[in-house]
């Protein structure tokens, strides 16, 4: 394959230039490319930085903000093509595989074996942290997308229990409508539409159907009657949005729930940060629960630090960083701020709030029961080209540009064309 040859050439050049520059000098620094520049995340990353500085390793920050990592990936392309890879790069899902295929990433096998990563990291995450059995990345966190966030007051006024099925969800949303608030806050951007859609796929069809239709992109499943039901539910859910949902950012939709203008929002666990920053208490001022019908299953996405191939002189610092990422203290410090849960399942949950504790317990449970699957909307189920093909159909259907019949016809076609 040509791409591999090019990559090997690039990697070879990188190695040669690094070897020439650092053959003798021990390089005690790490260069980290990431997009965690917002207040809380940046503070959490500082924990990692201080840990490394205590070991005498200098941290060279290379933040590239914006585009949910898109800009960072563009910067990375330039660096790798120029043969000057950073030490570690924050990365998501299939991006990791794409870069691993190019043969430009490092090898963490010895460290992983020594620290026993295999036993503590869920297998579904290891699918991304390892390539061909070789450890290439250290996972920082696990986010999950199948959450529903409910305004506490609206929920009290409704008076029912937490909805356990889509029918119960509709009952609750109808009650919110009667209260005179927007029942469901939503941001009309393709990834948000698809986040909701993947929740509905899981709620309607269960984990096996999710894997069949989304992870395996089976054309029969994509145009099946179950999928028709999914699209019908999407149409019904869209009836609970306010008319102005188009183009809205997710945090503005969260703000509607926080301020009581809306009853509920379907969003991943990063939404919790918005609620906490507004000084709301989980379980009282707002409810966090699994999206109705998806209890027991977890759709995840995970930020990982991918270690790139660096010269021998810089390897010790790189391994020290990988070890520091997996350090339970860092995993706790980072994830309590970020709203996600630690990537290792052997960590004590005392520092976490109610939602965090629930998330950690459910992640461990889902990992044990094999009901943990990668999120489509967040790059953990399909490579970018196929993922965006799903986005196109889902968002056009939700915005009423195409009918359910057309969506069922187009979905397998669009995915076949993108593969």
């Amino acid at each position, binding site marked *: 394959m040509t791409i591999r040859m*090019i990559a090997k050439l690039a990697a070879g050049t990188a190695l040669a230039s690094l070897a020439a520059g650092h053959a003798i000098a021990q390089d005690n620094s790490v260069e980290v490319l990431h997009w965690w520049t917002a207040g809380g995340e940046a503070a959490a990353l500082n924990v990692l930085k201080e840990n490394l500085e205590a070991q005498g390793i200098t941290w060279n920050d290379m933040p590239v903000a914006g585009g949910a990592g898109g800009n960072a990936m563009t910067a990375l392309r330039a660096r790798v093509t120029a043969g000057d890879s950073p030490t570690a790069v924050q990365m998501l899902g299939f991006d990791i595989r794409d870069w691993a295929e190019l043969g430009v990433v490092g090898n963490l096998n010895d460290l992983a074996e020594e620290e026993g990563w295999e036993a503590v990291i869920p297998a579904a995450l290891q699918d991304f942290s390892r390539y061909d059995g070789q450890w290439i990345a250290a996972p920082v966190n696990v986010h999950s997308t199948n959450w529903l966030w409910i305004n506490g007051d609206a929920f009290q006024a409704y008076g029912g229990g937490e909805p356990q099925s889509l029918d119960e969800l509709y009952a609750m949303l109808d009650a919110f409508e009667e209260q005179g608030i927007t029942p469901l806050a939503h941001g009309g951007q393709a990834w948000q539409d698809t986040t909701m859609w993947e929740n509905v796929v899981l709620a309607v069809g269960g984990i096996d159907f999710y894997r069949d239709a989304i992870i395996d992109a089976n054309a029969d499943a994509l145009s099946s009657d179950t999928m028709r039901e999914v699209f019908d539910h999407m149409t019904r859910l869209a009836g609970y949005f306010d*008319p*102005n*949902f188009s183009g809205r950012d997710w945090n503005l939709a969260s703000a509607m729930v926080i301020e009581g203008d809306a009853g509920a929002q379907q969003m991943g666990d990063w939404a919790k940060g918005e609620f906490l920053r507004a000084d709301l208490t989980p379980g009282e001022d707002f409810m966090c629960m699994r999206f109705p019908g998806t209890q027991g299953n977890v759709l995840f996405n995970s930020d990982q630090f991918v270690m790139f191939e660096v010269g021998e002189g810089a390897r010790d610092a790189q391994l020290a960083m990988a070890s520091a990422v997996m350090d339970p203290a860092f995993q706790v410090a980072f994830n309590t701020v970020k709203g996600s849960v630690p990537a290792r399942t052997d960590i004590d949950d005392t520092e976490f709030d109610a939602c965090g504790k629930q998330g950690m317990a459910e992640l461990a449970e889902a990992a044990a029961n094999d009901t943990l699957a990668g999120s489509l909307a967040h790059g953990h189920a399909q490579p970018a080209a196929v993922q*965006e093909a799903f986005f196109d159909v889902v968002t056009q259907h939700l*915005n009423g540009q195409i009918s359910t019949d057309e969506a069922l016809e187009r979905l397998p076609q669009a995915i076949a*064309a993108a593969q």
Partner: protein
Amino acid sequence: MTLTVEPSTPVRRHASLADRARAFLPKIVLAPSFALILFFVYGFILWTLYLSFTNSRILPIYELVGFDSYVRLWSQPNWHMAIKNLAIFGSLYIFFCIALGLLLAILLDQRIRGEGVLRPIFLYPMALSFIVTGTAWKWFLNPGLGLERAMHQLGWTSFKFDWLISTDMAIYTVVIAGVWQASGFVMAMFLAGLRGIDGEIIKAAQIDGASTFSIYRRIIIPLLRPAFLSAVIVLSHMAIKSYDLVIALTGGGPGNATELPSTFMYSYTFTRSQMAVGSASAVMMLMGVAAIMIPYLYSELREREK
């Protein structure tokens, strides 16, 4: 671009070194920028053309596969949407910019008081970046924030203006914002054209008893032909490459209702890992621009030769 500078007098046999250096000076001065343009503009155009015939995905691959990516491009519903939107946006944008620009220029040309104040006001939107224009209009047109809400608060509760969030009408909001931005600039072009018209012709027509309307229709507007041509050229290439305005205003949505070739090109090349299809769309856009520019340059050059 011409680099050859013909010496006006034949070089004498014993020309001094300084004379010879002077003859070469323009070439030497222009050479770096010429080389840079050759490489960074035309070189990369050729590179994009080459990539469009490969199967490149996340990074460039150099193995040729023929017209595969063009077939894929034209089978994408997104691309058809982008072309359709460009046709709507381009034609309305050019038409309304020229119509409004001409009207404003004619009104400003009536020797009115305060022209010095009004002219910069109309020109000012051009000084804003498209991102600013897009964001401002996004807030203004958003039914929950802007015009519709303001009207409701003033008591006109039946007022409805929700084009921004309607899949059928969203592309027209891009036209509105684009026209607002560029019509002042077109006005300046027409104003310059109007000021260049010989006053004697108009006086002669007035003496012959022509009405103001027919003076404009039969004399002034036909004389503005070069200004029309320049306006169409400038506006049409702005329409084809228009990207930031759409991104700021609608983000290509609702759904993909405001997808344009430029947003298509960016997303396929850089976020969808389909670099070859993205390159193919860039080549199609280049051909679109060329289809406008080549006849224009041809007619301009032919006229100059006459």
